[in-house]
């Protein structure tokens, strides 16, 4: 797998750890919501970067109070048709003003990337052979948009009136 940010591969400093696996000493880990809930106090106090992985049926509202602790929230797209992650990304950015990394993983495909970017996803965990041109196209495919989004760009409705 590779991590893509702003169209280019970047080093992945994070480790996904399973619910039963031992935490690497001092390592940056991403844990599931179940594990976070079970070991909340220990994880909150752990002296290392912490990330949270949310399944598509787990809304960020479930951990609203603790979002500030996470440097990355990884949203799972179990299948590209499952669009709950778009709403969760928007909620992270808008409702909870979450400023950390929002990572998409799972069934992330070429043509879903433009929407994910607009909803506030900023990194993508994809297969090693995933074409980077998809990220290039995602940035250029539509020059403007009608809806407000998390990028803060002005909408067509606004651009028309100066």
């Amino acid at each position: 797998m590779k991590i893509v940010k702003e169209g280019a591969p970047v080093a992945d400093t994070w480790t996904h750890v399973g619910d039963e696996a031992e935490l690497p000493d001092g390592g940056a880990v991403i844990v599931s919501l179940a594990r976070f809930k079970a070991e909340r106090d220990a994880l909150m106090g752990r002296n290392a970067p912490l990330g949270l992985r949310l399944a598509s049926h787990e809304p960020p509202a479930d951990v609203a109070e603790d979002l500030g602790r996470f440097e990355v929230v990884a949203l799972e797209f179990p299948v590209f048709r499952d669009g709950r992650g778009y709403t969760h990304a928007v909620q992270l950015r808008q409702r909870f003003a979450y400023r950390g990394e929002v990572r998409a993983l799972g069934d992330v495909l070429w043509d879903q990337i433009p929407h994910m970017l607009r909803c506030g996803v900023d990194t993508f965990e994809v297969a090693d052979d995933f074409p980077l041109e998809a990220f290039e196209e995602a940035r250029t495919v539509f020059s403007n948009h009608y809806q407000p989004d998390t990028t803060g760009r002005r909408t067509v409705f606004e651009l028309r009136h100066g």
Partner: protein
Amino acid sequence: MYRYDEFDQAAVDERVVQFRGQVERRLKGQMTEEQFKPLRLMNGLYLQLHAYMLRVAIPYGTLSAAQMRMLAHVARKYDKGYGHFTTRQNIQYNWPRLVDTPDILADLAKVQMHGIQTSGNCIRNVTSDPFAGATADEVEDPRPWCEIIRQWSTFHPEFSYLPRKFKIAVIASEQDRAAIRLHDIGIRIVKDAAGETGFEFWIGGGMGRTPIIAKKIRDFVPKAELLDYATACLRVYNALGRRDNIYKARIKILVHEMGLDKFSALVDEEFARIKGTVALPEAEIARIRAYFAPPELPVLPATSTAFEAKKFEDRAFRDFVRSNVRPHKVPGHAIVSISLKADGIAPGDATAEQMDLVADLAERHSQNEIRVTHEQNLVLPHVRLDDVHDVWQALKAASLGTANIGLVSDIICCPGLDYCDLANARSIPVAEAIQRRFADLERQHAIGGLKIKMSGCINACGHHHVGHIGILGVDKHGQELYQLQLGGSGAEDASLAKLTGAGFPPDRIVDAVETVVETYLGLRDGDDESFLACFRRVGMAPFKAALYEDR
């Protein structure tokens, strides 16, 4: 009519480029059919029984003459010379080739048309009253709001992978010619005491295998908050709608299972949080409204001598006027409906030549405007009374003059097993057989308003749940069987039709429909009591008796 500015044009042009790339990647095998499917669907491209099918949006049912000519061109160049107008103000082409579809969409983009979001689990083409801007009973023209919703919903980043498709309809009068109570969101434009425009929201209606009539969720959403409120509804649905079973994934099931109060409370919470997010500047509302300024029609005498004389002379014209012509808000004008339910023609089908003719007539007689109805007919919305006879003559010469709007042969019908991948039974041949049985126009007029709606499977594309008489084709052990339902309505008095009992084989269904009609004629309280009113008064029993007991 709305005209694209550079932003709108760029959006559809860029979409064509994007889709061309997707088709190329698919043809090169860089994408699986499963991955390609949602992308082609969001551009209106289905894979059907025999071939691809392309569905093109006619937003809120409004077309210019030039757009209609382009639809004719597409039919001629890329298809078999005809198209099929659907129950959601779209047109479908049944025989395009995959490699041609980017070119078709590029041609359509030249006249500001597209197939965007005519399928897929996204916000679909927004539909509206086909008489919008012409009828006296509306509080204002609903189409500017439809256009605002069209733009806002186009390529919505958050709502393109919803649990299931999402349909919005907007009207502005009490009389409902767009079936808003059978939509995921139905909006009726109203005015408050101060004369301010607002929106009455209905939620969770739909047909399919679990028909449900929408519930009113809010009496008055102020206009500045239209898109915020819609966003709140969609967001709650996207997060909580069922994804475990596509037959239970529509918002109607969520609202039904959760209860309106709970759903509404969640929407209200979200609405309170996001109010003011989707900026809809007053200047933008004014800009879009300006495109829909009423055409400058001269105020003429309310009665046209020429029109009256023709009605007096010509009985067939009189019939046409009775069923197909409705009053216009400007005296001396009329709204003329064009039936696409001529004998022997699949309901909603029109040839390229017929489309061209309608375009010509729109240019000459209807301020360049055409409308498409959810009942699969066309409308010339702004015709001078003095011209109606000429228009009818021209229509008649092209087999478009059938005087049956709202009558028994004006059947809504899905494509059925002849075309559709999902169907269990044929529907077009049954519709045609009913039309033949009731071919006598005099008899049809004597029967009066009667809406027959037929679907070839439980997905209900032919709206059988809301037919005054609904017919559902099913497959019972390899045999086609037709169930009969009575008493439905998709209008302001929405109701779901009830099943009469056991289904009828193909050779008996037309007799059964006739039995229902004859039973009604025997029971009705004077000629003015419509079938629906009569059924609601007497109930199912006498119809059941006539259908099953005498055999």
